[in-house]
């Protein structure tokens, strides 16, 4: 896979060399630089879907300001950097540093004399370990009552045909599936190269803790709903998977303080009757009360942080001793929120495809730039672009995955899931690809690989297979052979007692 990035980088170097001094040069350099940057994940969704809350949960700090009203108005990038810094990029192309303050955690950026409409984007640099591998992009909500804001999000996520999408992957938050969500997901179906879309999008059923207005089984119901969406053909062809997430719970879990935990402990120690009366409504929870020593302001703070549902699930945990410290409570809430699975998705599914996705974006960008480069450069280099495109097995894999997701491949029931698995849908380990338990012994793995290769080869050669299926089968056979080769390689090292330098 690195091979691919190397090829693309070499191509860009060549292009830069040939375009020295022209306007294209700086843009090409920017493209190359992007190859070295972390994966860019955009967080998108309807208004108030919980985008900023999720971003905070992923970073583990309350960075993005959140509010009951519509809040995010400008596309904001959160990336790793050596110092804390916020930069405004204005519509006219100029940039400037912006002073910012932190109020109750969240960053408050001072736009100065710039109007919201003048700011193209804000880049926040933050020294955070969690941002090293991922650059997160917060976007304004779609279907906002403020049309201008919606347009901004759309422009960013689904730019016109000419320019590639700036994000490598998209996490799409929705509450219950809405027709707006569907058409939006459809709209950022990326353009041609590899026809990628389902592979770089994850759907999230957000604010899952609010399903059922805070009944204790909310997350389970949310999981049931997500499962249903996962199998919905309309959604299947738009995103890789759908999972439920309790954003607020996750955010609070990753940023829980000792004070907050102590306040919760105090609540847990209250008489059952008293606490039940308080839990009737949010208003009552935060109202003056003679039965509870916690000041209303503190209770109100807890409400903002946990939500009624969060309080409802956390109190029994504390009472039953399952969460006896802030750390334990955070862990339990984190597990409940579904954020752990999402992180895995991002770091494994996306990050393992990162090079392919980035190479793909870069290649797209180069091709676009060549169109405005001097004609002779374009003539010489465009064939190279095409060569890399058609030669890269990784692109072919993406293509097959997409074809399948879109329902272009006619398969037996069981073949589809197998195809996704073989292409690394469940992880790139040979056992994961084959659907075997991780502890499966080597001979078994090898035998299974050979069986699968044989099966797909026959499918590919079968006269009745359609062209699309033959293509897919050929790609799969190559993938499996690659896996087999890597597997044998490792085997050899293992036997030869080699050091732990893993192949690839």
């Amino acid at each position, binding site marked *: 896979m690195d091979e691919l990035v190397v090829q693309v980088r070499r191509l860009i170097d060549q292009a830069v060399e040939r375009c020295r001094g022209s306007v294209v040069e700086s843009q090409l350099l920017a493209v190359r630089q992007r190859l070295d940057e972390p994966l860019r994940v955009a967080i998108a969704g*309807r*208004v*108030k879907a919980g985008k900023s809350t999720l971003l905070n949960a992923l970073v583990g700090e309350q960075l993005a300001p959140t509010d*009951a*009203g*519509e809040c995010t108005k400008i596309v904001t990038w959160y990336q790793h950097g050596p110092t804390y810094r916020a930069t405004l990029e204005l519509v006219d192309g100029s940039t400037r540093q912006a002073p910012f303050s932190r109020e109750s955690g969240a960053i408050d950026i001072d736009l100065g004399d710039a109007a919201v409409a003048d700011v193209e984007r804000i880049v926040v640099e933050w020294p955070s370990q969690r941002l090293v591998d991922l650059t997160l992009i917060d976007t304004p909500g779609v*279907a*906002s*009552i*403020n*049309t201008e804001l*919606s347009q901004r999000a*759309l422009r960013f996520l*689904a730019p016109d*045909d000419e320019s590639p999408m700036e994000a490598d992957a998209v996490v799409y938050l929705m*509450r*219950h*599936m*809405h*027709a*707006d969500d569907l*058409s939006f997901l*459809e*709209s950022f*179906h990326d*353009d*041609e190269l590899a*026809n990628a*879309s389902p592979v770089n999008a994850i759907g999230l059923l957000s*604010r899952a803790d*609010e*399903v*059922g*207005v*805070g*009944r204790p089984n*909310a997350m389970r*119901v949310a999981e*049931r*709903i997500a499962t*249903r969406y996962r199998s919905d053909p*309309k959604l299947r062809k738009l995103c890789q998977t759908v999972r439920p997430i309790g954003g607020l719970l996750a955010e609070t879990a990753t940023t829980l303080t000792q004070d907050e935990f102590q306040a919760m402990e105090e609540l847990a120690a209250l008489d059952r009757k008293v606490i039940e009366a308080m839990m*009737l*409504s*949010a*208003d009552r*929870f*935060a109202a003056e009360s003679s039965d509870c020593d916690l000041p209303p302001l503190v209770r*109100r703070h807890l*409400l*903002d942080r946990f*939500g*009624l549902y969060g309080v409802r699930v956390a109190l029994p945990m504390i009472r039953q001793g399952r969460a006896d410290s802030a750390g334990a409570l955070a862990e339990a809430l984190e597990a409940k929120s579904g954020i752990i699975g999402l992180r895995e998705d991002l770091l494994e599914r996306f990050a393992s495809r990162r090079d392919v996705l980035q190479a793909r974006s870069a290649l797209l960008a180069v091709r676009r730039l060549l169109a405005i480069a001097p004609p002779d450069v374009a003539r010489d280099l465009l064939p190279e672009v095409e060569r890399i495109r058609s030669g890269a097995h990784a692109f072919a894999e993406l293509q097959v995955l997409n074809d399948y997701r*879109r*329902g*272009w*491949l*006619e398969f037996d029931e069981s073949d589809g899931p197998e195809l996704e698995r073989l292409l690394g849908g469940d992880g790139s380990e040979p056992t994961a690809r084959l659907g075997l338990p991780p502890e499966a012994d080597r001979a078994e793995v090898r035998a299974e690989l050979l069986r699968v290769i044989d099966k797909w080869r026959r499918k590919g050669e079968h006269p009745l297979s*359609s062209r699309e*299926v033959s293509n897919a089968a050929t790609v799969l056979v190559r993938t499996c052979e690659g896996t087999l080769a890597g597997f044998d390689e490792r085997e050899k090292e293992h036997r030869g007692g080699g050091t732990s330098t893993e192949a690839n």
Partner: protein
Amino acid sequence: MHEQAFAVVDTAITAATAYQREDLADRLRLTRQQLDDPTVRVMVVGEFKQGKSSLVNALLNAPVCPVDDDVATSVPTVIRYASEPQAHLVRRPESDPPGVHGGIGADDPTEVTDPIDFASVPVYASELGNPGNEMALLAVEIGLPRRILADGLVVVDTPGVGGLGSAHTAATIAALPSADVILFVSDASQEMTRTEFEFLRAAQDVCPVTAFVMTKTDFYPDWQQIRDLNANHLSRLANPVPLFTTSAALRMKAIESNDADLNQESGYQNLIEFLLTTATAIAQEATAAVVADLRSAVGHLKGTFEGEKQILEDPSQGERLMAEFTRAKERTNALRDQAARWQVTLNDGVADLTSDFDHRLRGRLRQTSIEAEAALEEQVPGDIWDEFAEWLRRRVSHDLAQTYVELARRTDDLSQDVADHFDDGQEILQVRLDPTGALSKASAIAPRTTIESIRAGAGTKAMTAMRGSYGGLLMFGMVAQMAGLAMLNPATVVIGALMGRKAVKDDRERQMTVQRQQAKATARQFIDDTGFEVGKEMKDSLKALHRQLRDYYQVRAEEMNRSIAATMAAAKQIMASNQQQRDSRLRDVKAELGRLNGLLTQVDALETTSGTSDG
């Protein structure tokens, strides 16, 4: 007050019959029928999962609408008063093809109802037992012994709009025009979205009374802030929309524990008050119409006697009055005439509307045709056909709706113009274009052929999803607005966004050209067919409107003519009679006038008492 109104109308009918004015009696009988239906229909609408069913349940304190965290309502539930709890399914007769329906719960004689067990309502009304309303039910009707319903309040819980299946949206919007009050439900988790705002705006066009209900206030700590944001958005609407904040959970708890404070907190008290006040106001409006009819009829009766009285009191004026009556008779005769000026105004007006309609519809369809072809030029028809076909249907429906709305505004003006030719010019027939015919035609036409998909093996989907789900005309425009608010943008943008960008593969180029031609031809054919059929239907409904207006004003002219004729006949008789006869007749006439004035007083009383004694 109802009995009072009936009594007065009955007296007036008796009087009209006694004075041999069967024409007036007939009109009053129609009035009486209107009085018979005191229903005030409250429709609860909103996006799915906003707590509509919970709201209805809490409002009526009965678990009538199925509530679930995941499964949504799939069939409208109509709840009205009954002395015993009962439930019925409403469906179309088997033989009747799915077509147009006048609106949820409308009393359509072609519907069939089956009684069902009260407890099994959720099976029929929700996605659980009836996904996507596969049982093709029109509604589930429920009767409940609740005081709040006793005065004719009917509550309708609707499937949420904006979900994955657009059929729900269509069905709900189709029913909106039949509502007297719309309760728009949105929960306190966030301020209203653009889609919701647009829906509300469209709803205002079809229903005069719209209220915004913000639910789940117990669960969201920031509900007050959301309420203020919403109030701000609502203030941008043309008509004022009251905002209510409610919590079904608190209300249920309050009823359970009989806790007045909690009930106050739940916000239902205000909502119920609003509903009852609105119901009274609507009843008052109905009374006002009845009163106007009564005044007009009694006025006709009185007019004859008053003419008689004038001559009797001062016979010397007889000649002059007689001449005046003759002139009036000539005028009314002229009104009855085919060539009367109001007839000309009416004929010209309808002709204008017809040609204008034709012109506008054609212009719109032509634009649609151009945009559709441009879109097909840029896309792979096989890939996008399903979406494209649906877009096209919606777009054409939108064209139709838009044209209709423009026309509808002008029909009232026409009615006023005609009324101006009459002496008083007061009684104006409020007419409405009946779009149902055109709509059923529009929804019955499907693109004739489905473009074979070029993707391997994937079957072609029939374009039946949207068929038969349309009802009211206005919904078309609204469906369009709901469909991503996109209809006002150039089609290429819409389709681009709707269908994603799919690239053209080189080796498919040739196949594509053939397919593209086929797709374009199909789209053109569809637009032509729709234009033809719908054009015919719309013209028919304009004709119906023409007849309706003509008959109405013809009858008015007839009434006036009979009144003046009766006056003249009486006058002639008086001229021929002697003093003694005249004296006795004057006494009679004064007595009759006294009786009619008494009746008028009763009519006036109706107006002042209505509302106060109601409820």
